[in-house]
């Protein structure tokens, strides 16, 4: 780096300064996240007798959740749904957010009110959103079916039918979170130098060209944040499906995701049976490897894209 800086800032003091900046966050995280997680993850190598570890089991728990029927079926079923959720959110949530952000960028009359409104559901809890959409999607009394009945479409059990249950929960999730990517992308767009946009306009660029060739490349940092948070969010998805479809991913496991499967395995549910910390921890380790690995690769690729632009 520039030699100028090194001269004005002695290496020793610099190290101390950096350590001072990092220490509080590192300490708190180590004490209340890293250490408890490591002690829990250790359990993934143990077999269990009831709630207590019974002995070292090597990779047995991993073998069970990855290869042994029926556990492996449940694992891959859940993983597949996580992938579906991620892709759906990337396309529909982030896509809509991008277009909405562009619409808001135009600063038409009332744009401030629209910004407030689109973000309003974000402040609600998943419990509120889950119950609300359960009521709206209710097969007999729900507003969605009642509205469809007005135009002559028959009632449908949105959350009860295996083919529509996951999609319905994803829609509720989009309604809940749409404001977040919208405002982050809008923030990114507003950071673009106004002269650049103006110059493009004067060159005769239409909205489509402006979006794809000017705005999209220039908001790369915001896009990176949204991509990564969407990925992590979809693979840790838990609360909304939990409230709307229950711990077992009803109906018939069609809404089961890794978060639910892990929680139900580790802590049991009063109505399906017993707890298995060993298997549950193994699932969490696998989730960690998957999410951290992909995040790390994606960050490298996306940051390179940012640098190239």
């Amino acid at each position, binding site marked *: 780096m520039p030699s100028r800086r090194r001269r004005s800032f002695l290496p020793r003091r610099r190290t101390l300064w950096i350590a001072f900046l990092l220490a509080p966050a590192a300490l708190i995280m180590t004490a209340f*996240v890293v250490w408890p997680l490591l002690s829990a*993850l250790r359990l993934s190598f143990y077999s269990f007798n009831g709630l207590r570890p019974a002995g070292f089991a090597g990779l047995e728990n991993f073998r069970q959740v990855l290869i042994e029927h029926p556990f492996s079926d449940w694992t891959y079923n859940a993983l597949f749904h996580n992938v579906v959720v991620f892709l759906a959110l990337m396309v529909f949530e982030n896509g809509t957010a991008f277009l909405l952000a562009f619409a808001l960028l135009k600063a038409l009359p009332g744009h401030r009110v629209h910004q407030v409104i689109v973000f*309003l559901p974000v*402040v609600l809890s998943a*419990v509120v959103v889950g119950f609300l959409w359960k009521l709206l999607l209710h097969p007999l009394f729900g507003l969605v079916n009642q509205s469809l009945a007005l135009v002559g479409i028959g009632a449908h059990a949105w959350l009860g039918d295996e083919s529509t249950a996951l999609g319905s929960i994803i829609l509720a999730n989009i309604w809940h979170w749409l404001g977040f990517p919208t405002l982050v992308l809008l923030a990114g767009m507003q950071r673009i130098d106004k002269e650049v946009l103006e110059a493009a306009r004067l060159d005769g660029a239409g909205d489509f060209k402006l979006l794809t060739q000017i705005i999209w490349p220039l908001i790369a940092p915001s896009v990176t944040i949204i991509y990564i948070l969407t990925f992590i969010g979809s693979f840790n998805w838990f609360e909304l499906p939990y409230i709307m479809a229950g711990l077992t991913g009803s109906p018939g496991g069609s809404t089961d995701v890794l978060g639910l499967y892990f929680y139900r395995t580790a802590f049991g549910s009063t109505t399906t049976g017993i707890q298995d910390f060993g298997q549950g921890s193994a699932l969490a380790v696998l989730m960690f490897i998957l999410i951290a690995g992909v995040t790390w690769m994606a960050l490298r690729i996306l940051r390179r894209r940012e640098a190239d632009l």
Partner: protein
Amino acid sequence: MTLADRDAATHGPPSARKRGFSLGDGAIQAVLVLNAFIMLYPLFVMLMSSFKTNAEIFTSPFALPRSLSPANIEKVWNETNFVRYLANSVGVTVASIAVIVVVGTMAAYAIARYEFRFSGAVLMFFLSGMTVPLKLAIIPLFIQLDTLHLIDTYAGLVLVYVAMGIPSAIFIMTGFLRSLPRELEESARLDGASEWRIMLYVMLPLARPALVIVAIQNAVPIWNDFFFPLILITSDDRKTLPQGLTVFMGEFTTNWGVLFTGLSLAALPITLVYIALSRHFIAGITQGAVK
């Protein structure tokens, strides 16, 4: 000149940009209005439902409630420690956010603005906290807090929230701080400003949009969380609002009206705060960088 004026000026009058393929302002406005309806109508339904009886919800979901009877609200008010829960939630949320913003920003600043060995590894260390469900660690976490005599205390809860909030705070702040230009920092350094001053007075004011995003992004899950208080807090005096209401609503599992009253009351404080502060908040997120 206000920012809205500036936006209007840079975009120019509609006639100036009718070249190429452009969406009409009318079409855009229509999309925004439709979106607003989709966002607001369910909330309206929720509010209305909290004044209804089960029978009303089931037989006439579209209709306005027969009366704006406060019966459901009175039930929540009389049978729970509502004000106490509310105060606890406010205290815990504000304290957690404050600590998250301070320590998260410090760490992100170190990672984003200085080059040092292992900075990539340090960032990954922090980010890894986002990638595993902390629920898994609830038993060791509980034992850890018990050893430190932090079970059933505000401090214990706040520390857990801070630990959970740090990773995403660092992630967002690092991204933003990295994108700030080097020039300002360098010239301040040439003027002899200390690192401390540069961080506090030169760089962080520029990162205001990210700070607002971090605060909001953490406030929402912390305010709404009921899982950790359920396990870490036992005294009724220290319960948070979602926790208190979750326990209360458990007594009325089939009474949708009471349920929605509880949910509306839990959501109302943060919604009102958001609406009241939305001008600053939106401005903070979307316009901070222009300054």
